[in-house]
């Protein structure tokens, strides 16, 4: 314990001495908050770029990865501490995104040496941005129903089909895909393979999807006779489902954590909106029912943060367990409740889409409220999370679905 305490002091000093002051207090400091990088990145803020470079130099963009792949060679416990110290002053991570928190850890475990050496350093340095090719039009919650065909042709795979909800595919360099390599496998979970593709490969088309909020990170990605070398297969052919689930576990846990902003921030936000819209400068919120709802939100928020802390304290290992499913269920519920309450206090001032009569903050808040409806669907819907907890944690018999 005291060793970790010593490390905490070291991490605190380094983060506070090196994080540019302009970035303090600007971020939720979650796994998706920070410089996403990649070849299409147009970031010009010198402080963001300096923070990125300092993180890379220290090996703290991927603290628990081996040094040979651009990491810091530290333990998962130490990595938690570094991230907690960034969160404490609300600075973004020097480099963030799916490559670091979802794909990288799984490639580290399931990839071969050549793949690790080829891909991990670029992720740790923020030079290569990755996106995820999982869902398809007929494979949402029933992900194992995926049909993107990958056929062997000599030392290549030929990919044909479509992925959907490929977040930021338009800004990414590479995609990790779940593909169907054996359409005749006895179970649909068999015959799936994880294949990596450079998004510049001929035959790949990316199209953006707008959400009810009016904007979106999501895309559709089409594959038309896309040829990739067979060295891009991760793990064993037809046995990709295990890897797919490992990435999903990291995704659930990352989403849960990215929702965990500063403790107390959801309550503060809703109280501030209440004061603004109901014109209550300070003191108690006059409507006792509303106050009770805000307090319920504040209590849920604190309970969520304490639960994250408890999970982090007990899980020193790097593989998120089934608790990750709970953090996503609770975190997304908290997020939606926060926006619902924030919209409720705004009344008709929350109805603006754009233009005159609405202030910027309210317009943005309304878009964020709309966006929050996706949080209980993306990354495995709450219903799927509940199925997982039911089966793996509670040991209830599998139902007919």
């Amino acid at each position: 314990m005291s060793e970790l305490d010593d490390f905490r002091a070291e991490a605190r000093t380094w983060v506070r001495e090196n994080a540019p002051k302009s970035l303090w207090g600007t971020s939720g400091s979650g796994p998706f908050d920070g410089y996403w990088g990649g070849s299409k990145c147009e970031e010009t803020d010198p402080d963001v770029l300096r923070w990125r470079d300092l993180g890379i130099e220290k090996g703290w963009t991927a603290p628990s990865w081996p040094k040979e792949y651009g990491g810091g060679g530290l333990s998962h416990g130490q990595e938690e501490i570094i991230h907690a110290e960034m969160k404490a002053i609300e600075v973004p991570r020097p480099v963030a995104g799916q490559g670091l928190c979802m794909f990288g850890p799984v490639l580290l475990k399931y990839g071969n040496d050549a793949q690790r050496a080829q891909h991990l350093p670029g992720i740790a340095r923020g030079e290569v941005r990755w996106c995820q090719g999982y869902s398809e039009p007929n494979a949402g919650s029933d992900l194992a129903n995926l049909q993107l065909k990958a056929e062997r042709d000599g030392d290549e795979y030929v990919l044909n089909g479509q992925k959907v909800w490929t977040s930021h595919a338009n800004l990414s360099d590479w995609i990790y895909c779940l593909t169907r390599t054996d359409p005749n496998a006895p179970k649909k979970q068999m015959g799936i393979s994880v294949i990596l593709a450079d998004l510049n490969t001929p035959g790949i088309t990316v199209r953006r999807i707008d959400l009810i909020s009016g904007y979106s990170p999501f895309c559709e990605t089409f594959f038309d006779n896309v040829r990739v070398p067979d060295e891009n297969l991760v793990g064993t052919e037809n046995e990709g489902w295990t890897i797919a689930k490992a990435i999903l576990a990291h995704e659930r846990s990352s989403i849960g954590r990215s929702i965990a902003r500063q403790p107390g921030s959801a309550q503060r936000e809703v109280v501030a909106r209440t004061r603004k819209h109901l014109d209550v400068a300070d003191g108690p919120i006059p409507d006792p029912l509303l106050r009770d709802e805000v307090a319920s939100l504040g209590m849920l928020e604190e309970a969520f943060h304490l639960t994250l802390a408890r999970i982090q304290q007990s899980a020193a290992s790097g593989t998120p367990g089934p608790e990750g499913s709970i953090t996503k269920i609770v975190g997304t519920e908290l997020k939606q409740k926060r926006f619902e309450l924030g919209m409720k206090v705004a009344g008709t001032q929350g109805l603006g889409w754009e233009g005159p009569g609405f202030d910027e903050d309210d317009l943005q808040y309304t878009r964020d409220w709309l966006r929050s409806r996706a949080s209980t669907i993306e990354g495995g819907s709450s219903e799927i999370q509940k199925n997982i907890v039911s089966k793996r944690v509670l040991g209830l018999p599998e139902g007919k679905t």
Partner: protein
Amino acid sequence: MSGHTAPSLLLNDEQKMLSKTAHEFIRERAPAARIRSFRDSRDEVGFSRELWNEMAELGWLGLQIPEDYDGLGLGFFDLCVVLEQSGRELMPEPFVSTLLLGTQTLLLGGTEAQKKALLPGIAAGEMLLTVGHEEASSRDDSSKRATVARKSAEGFELSGEKIQVLDGHLADRIIVSATTSDGGCTLFLVDPADAGVTTKRQFRIDGLNAAIVKLDGVAVHRDDIVGELGGGATLLQAVFDRAAVGLSAQMLGASEQAFADTIEYIKEREQFGVPIGSFQALQHRAVSVYTEIALTRSVVLAAARTIDEAPDEVPRLASLAKAMASETFMHAAKEAIQMHGGIGVTDEHDIGLYIKRAQATYMTFGKPSQHRQRWAELHGY
């Protein structure tokens, strides 16, 4: 945790061992079904003195009592480890009256003489202590208290009537709140054997034992004031905060047991040729209860920790723990009955005992809505 690092929410090796030992002992010796037999036999005590003495020998009653008073000198957190397990089987033994209300009042406000006189007996299982605060006219609003303390030559004379005094039917000492001539609230230590004290046993749905305690000009000495003259309200608030946390630990244990029994039941019970636990409608509701219990565990552990390590945070965390544990236990108890189906509403089955305790604990030391209101006040809205 307003911005600072979360407290340690893990049990150390000794606490894990204590939890395991207590779990096995209580499961073996104190099953929840006892509640029914105490009720049906109209048992005069209403709990097992033998069991209480055995737990004293195991050191559990003196866990938090300082070594100077023959306790083990550990923390409130350690006490909560045992309380959680006692909650699993709804034990009617005097944990709340003696270890929470009585002991915490002495630890927070007792004089050296009072602590020397009473705490060793509590640790040894020989002394039962309780607090009488509730009155027919002041259930939710203690400012409507009608019990008065009139000044006398030696001290004070107490008159009034306290209701639902936990274990008041056989407590060796009762700490009562009373209003003095200047309108302030003061706590007094009363010996029920003294002239003017009469107790009448009350029977509740939850199997905890209680009594109406009538005070008719009971003479108490100045030295029997607990805490400061006029400081009763502040002291009681601090005691209730600790008691709320301890009770929340019991509610956490009770929720876990009701939930575990329910999961076991729906895995075995078959309808339509399959276990009913294979139905998604039940599975998703079970996960909701599981999730609430996981959240409640975090807040109860955090609240217990603040009592030992961060006293300034106690009011906020106590309200958080009591509000959440109350709602979780009630939800777990209701779902437990529903998922058990018909057998769940019979007196024969133990699962129905849980909702009775859930209702009682929900109403004790502040309802959830009152704690949410205080939470809001503490956060400045």
